[in-house]
């Protein structure tokens, strides 16, 4: 068994390698990386100096190998602007992002799964339609519109919650809770839409399975049929989407942190864009991709717990 898990682990290496190549090539596709790094006002001598300093005059595969070795040692480079290592910046900024992601995932799953089951159980009724309308809305309303909408209603008009900012739960739990409500709501909408939709679809599908009929033929009550037989069998696609949706979540985090002025990794990216601080952008993309791949690997391995037919 551990050997098979190891093999599954090894199979993610090509994926990460592809990510690394893409991230590495990103700076090259637009032309001369030295010119980009040196900035808009650089003279040709300055560009040449950057080229030498960063080794852009070496063959590209050599540069790639060197960079990969660096990355494997945990070195994602330094910020062009502050000179701080990217890893240090990530460590400084990770807490708010992690907190926001956690509250969002927990809240979304708690809301979306029951909603989806309800919609499937009552499929074709107004309850089902209401859930589906909500799901389409969740997909369609841009995160920043939601964020500012919530802010307008709850913070500016009703003055119930703080407008912007972040307080660490380790400093002031109450302020943390007040501050995290709106960002969580904002970020959750699209995630809830995604999970509720897939929950409804897969529960609806399992409800048509023969073993549901068997359970009813045994005299089982509907509630148990729904949760013990249907939801349990629908779990694999739902969990899969929760994992795949993390990509969506990361995109949403970037926007949500900007809207609510939360000093997390998302803000780090946005600030890096405005300053054209490429090592930070590169490093963060690599970091997020790694998180995504590892998370989905864990979910893959968890399938064996959900479905005895799946073996690695």
């Amino acid at each position, binding site marked *: 068994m551990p050997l098979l898990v190891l093999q599954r682990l090894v199979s993610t290496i*090509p*994926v*990460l*390698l*592809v*990510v690394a*190549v*893409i*991230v590495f090539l*990103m*700076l090259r*596709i*637009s032309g001369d990386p030295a010119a*980009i790094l040196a900035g808009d006002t650089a003279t040709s001598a300055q560009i040449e100096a950057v080229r030498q300093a960063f080794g852009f005059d070496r063959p590209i595969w050599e540069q790639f190998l060197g960079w990969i070795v660096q990355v494997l040692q945990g070195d994602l480079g330094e910020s062009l602007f502050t000179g701080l290592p990217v890893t240090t910046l990530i460590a400084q900024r990770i807490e708010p992002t992690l907190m926001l992601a956690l509250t969002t995932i927990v809240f979304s799953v708690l809301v979306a799964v029951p909603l989806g089951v309800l919609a499937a159980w009552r499929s074709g009724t107004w309850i089902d339609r209401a859930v589906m309308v909500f799901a*389409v*809305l969740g*997909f*369609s*309303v*841009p*995160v*920043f*519109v939601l964020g*500012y*909408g919530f*802010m*307008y209603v709850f913070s*500016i008009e009703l003055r119930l919650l703080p*407008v912007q900012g972040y307080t660490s739960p380790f400093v002031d739990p109450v302020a943390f809770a007040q501050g995290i409500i709106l960002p969580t709501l904002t970020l959750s909408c699209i995630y809830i839409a*995604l999970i509720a*939709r*897939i929950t409804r*679809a*897969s529960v609806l*599908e399992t409800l048509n399975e*023969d073993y549901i009929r068997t359970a009813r033929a045994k005299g089982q009550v509907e509630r148990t049929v729904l949760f013990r037989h249907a939801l349990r069998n629908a779990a694999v*696609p739902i969990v*899969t*989407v929760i994992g795949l*949706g993390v*990509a969506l979540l*990361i*995109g949403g985090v*970037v*926007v949500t942190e*900007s809207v609510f002025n939360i000093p997390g990794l998302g803000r780090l*990216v*946005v600030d890096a*864009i*405005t300053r*054209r601080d*490429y090592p930070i*952008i*590169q490093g*963060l*993309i690599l970091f*997020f*991709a790694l998180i*995504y*791949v590892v998370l989905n690997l864990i979910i893959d391995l968890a399938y064996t717990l959900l479905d005895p037919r799946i073996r690695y």
Partner: protein
Amino acid sequence: MTAVVDKTAEGAIPPGDEPTPAPAAPASHLAGTLRRYPLAAFAALVLALIAFGAVFAPLVGTTDPTALNPAARLQGASATHWLGTDHLGRDVWSRLVYGARVSVVVGLAVAALAVVVGLVIGLFTGFIRWLDPIVMRVMDGLMAIPGILLAIALVSVSGASIVTVIAAIVVPEVPRVVRLVRSVVLSVREEPYVEAAVSVGTPLPKLLWRHVLPNCVPPLIVQATYVAASAMLTEAILSFLGAGTPPIVPSWGNMVAEGRLLFQIAPMNLLYPGIALAITILAVNILGDALRDRLDPKLAKRVGQR
């Protein structure tokens, strides 16, 4: 024996020796869809209005959307400025109408490009065995990078213009189309009628064209609408984050980004373009859902997510 009884009561018993009900002819898909789904019909109408406004922008009560008028900053709605003015005195209604052009162009262009590129890669990947693992690993890698981040990075290195924005949004969308096409190809390849065509000596190009491609069209039409919706959303987010179309272009994303500064004073200048964006994307998604229900009920299952 009707299909209804077939499914519910007779289980997997071989179907009766009678013809099955006819599937709808492809030509009547759109019209039929609109009749059966009034909400979708309404969504189509909304989209038609938006497209009309985008094409004939100068004719729908607008002035120059980039004309500055510092004297008339942040005015409320009036007969001259239907939705008021922004912090530089520009007419919000005009900017909103011209902004639709950007969203419509980005949505259509990204959907078309992503579908065409994804279709070609997916068809070949599904049929050429040695190509499959290589292409799919590249696609997995692309999908591992959150789409918005990838687009941000692509725009920020290649400079902000509408072309680079479109290209940057297409790249993260392609893997999803490839996966969809490939899954259709893999399942169609196992169909007995495709095997029958192989055994009567049909060469690969004809096989793909006659027997495989027609099966890809319905799910691709549906997927194209979702891609269009997602592209408009991403374009707006890029502009909002300062990595999209140049600020001089009146786009909804840029209007939102500018509205942020004075949000507490003039919230509507942010909310107007935001709501326009939400309505447009909502309409596209509703249309996509109706098309999916009609064309391809199994699509949601096949792609797992959108």
